[in-house]
Structure formats: structure tokens, C-alpha cells
């Protein structure tokens, strides 16, 4: 196109995207485990079930997208604990008190905490057998419809909505933390 154009030109590519992945996708792992009834306990158990698969993907790729919150790649449990604590307490303004040097202030930190853990879940799914990985909607449907992480993130989203009346940033962060439609 560069060789023939005499003015700014827009051309469509002639090819379409391949199949967008299965409409109905189910995670083959059994995530339900016996724990105490706390969100933190349930979330840590879920993360534990996914850990070997996420480790496999990290090994294969030689990298991870986890860590934008400031947590190190091996601090998945710490991030999970912080998110569950915030989901239960509703405190979306105070910086979580841990040894981690957070890379962002609250409530904006919540957006990256959520993304770190979602990245970990995506890594776990990416390693599992199957010809076609789930598409974006199927992944979101699984996380927000079937996992404790989804339950935790939706609880935090509700807290951010409530806090948004007094703190507009909280309302903005709510929309950066949970995808549209959830």
C-alpha cells in the first residue's frame, strides 16, 4: 500500500478473524474446596487450586503480567488476601497495610490488584488442555459468574459504587476494575 498510495488511504484487510473460541466454555478444574466461610479463606483455596497451572504457563512463556500493583510475581496469595479483606471490610480508601510497596494509591490500586489476580487466573486457564482457549467473554463469564475471585471483585465494585458519592475517583475506579456487563 505504501508503494502505491498517493494520499492517505484506508484499506480493509481481506481476511476475517478465526473462530472466536467456544461460546460455552467450562473450566475443567474443580475449584470448590472445604474451607472456613471467610472470603479470604475461600479465595486462597481457589488460588491454590489454580497455582500449578499458572506456574506452568509462566514456565512456558518465561514471563508473567502479574505485578502491576507492586506485588512480586510470587506474592499472589498476598494480593488475594488483600482483595478479600477489602471485599469484607468495604474499606476502599486506606492503603492496605502489608510489606508490599504498593505502586499506586488507593482507590486506584484496586484496579491493579484486580488485574493482577485476573492475570493469574488467565495464566492458569492458558495452561489447561484443549484445542481452543476461551474467548474474552467466556473468560469473564467464568471469573465473574463462577469463581470466588468474581464474588470478591463484585463486592469491591459495590463498595466503590457506594464510596463514589463522596469520592468521585472511587466511581471511576469501579468502572476500571470490573468489565462492562458485570
Amino acid at each position: 500500500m505504501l508503494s502505491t498510495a498517493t494520499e492517505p488511504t484506508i484499506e480493509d484487510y481481506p481476511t476475517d478473524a478465526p473462530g472466536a473460541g467456544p461460546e460455552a466454555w467450562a473450566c475443567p478444574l474443580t475449584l470448590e474446596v472445604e474451607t472456613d466461610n471467610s472470603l479470604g479463606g475461600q479465595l486462597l483455596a481457589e488460588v491454590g487450586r489454580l497455582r500449578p497451572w499458572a506456574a506452568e504457563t509462566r514456565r512456558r512463556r518465561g514471563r508473567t503480567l502479574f505485578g502491576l500493583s507492586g506485588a512480586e510475581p510470587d506474592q499472589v496469595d498476598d494480593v488475594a488476601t488483600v482483595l478479600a479483606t477489602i471485599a469484607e471490610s468495604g474499606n476502599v480508601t486506606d492503603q492496605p497495610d502489608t510489606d508490599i510497596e504498593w505502586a499506586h494509591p488507593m482507590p486506584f490500586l484496586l484496579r491493579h490488584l484486580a488485574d493482577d489476580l485476573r492475570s493469574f487466573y488467565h495464566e492458569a486457564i492458558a495452561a489447561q488442555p484443549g484445542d481452543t482457549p476461551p474467548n474474552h467473554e467466556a473468560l469473564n463469564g467464568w471469573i465473574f459468574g463462577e469463581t470466588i475471585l468474581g464474588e470478591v471483585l463484585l463486592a469491591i465494585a459495590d463498595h466503590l459504587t457506594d464510596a463514589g458519592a463522596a469520592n468521585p475517583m472511587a466511581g471511576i475506579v469501579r468502572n476500571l476494575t470490573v468489565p462492562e456487563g458485570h
Partner: protein
Amino acid sequence: MGSALVVRLSDLHPNEADHLRARADAMPEFDCEQWLTPRPLTESTVALVSTCGMHRRDDPPFTLGAVDYRLIPRSVDWADIVISHISANFDRSGLADDPNVAMPLDRLEDLAARGEIGAVSNWHYTFMGGHPQPQMFEEAGNEVGRLLAEDGVDVALLVPI
């Protein structure tokens, strides 16, 4: 280079498709500079400019409303790459599996090895897309343009995400 993968608006979630249509309608008019026919690609040095929000792990992350950019060296180690794009609707799964989805540096190297482009730039640039006021990028965009020119780049491949 393999087949191009084009996702159409009809493939997207209806909310996202409506959002993108509204954004397109609200796009400001930009004056067009005089068209310059570049030198043949086989003699051109090519750089990537992507709005995927990718950067090296020790770079400052993109923040809400960011209109600045990050540098990606030609020799980047993909293990050192993270993505701080703030949109929760931005599907990272493909990009996580292969950073070339948004930053096709390895593909540029392939093209250079086959002689289809002249050379790969030593530096590439990333922004965070999704900003509601694209005219806010003018200053940084002009700066990147000057840097590309100073670096001897003939063609910039824009990768909107």
C-alpha cells in the same frame, strides 16, 4: 507474515461496539499534512507505535488519563514486559500469550531478515489508548515523530489497541 486477523464491530460485545461507534463519531478533525511517498519498504527503517499500554516492568505504569509514552528497545526481553492499560474491557489474553499481538517486533525482525523491510528501528513507542480526548496526545505525538525522524526511521507502523 501470516494472515491478518480483523475483529469487526459486530464481533464485539454490543456495549463495546456502541462505545467505539460513539468515539468514532466524536473524533475531532485533523489537518492533513502533504502526503509524502516514503522510500521503498525494502530500504526503509520501520518502528512500531502501539497504544497497548505495554512497557518494561521498571518503567512507571500508565495512569488514569495518561498521554505520555514509554520506550521499547529493539532488544527488549519479553520477560520484562507488563501492561498497565487501565481499561477493564481490554482483552489481554492473546497479548499475554504473545506480545507480538500488540507489539509485533519479532515479526518486524522476520521481515528484515527476509529483506522485505530495510531495517528495524532501535526504539519503539507505546502509549495507552482509550483516552476520550485524542487531541491531548498532540504534544507527545509530535515529540515521538521528531524522535523517530532523528533516529532515521522512515516508516512508523501504528498498532491501535
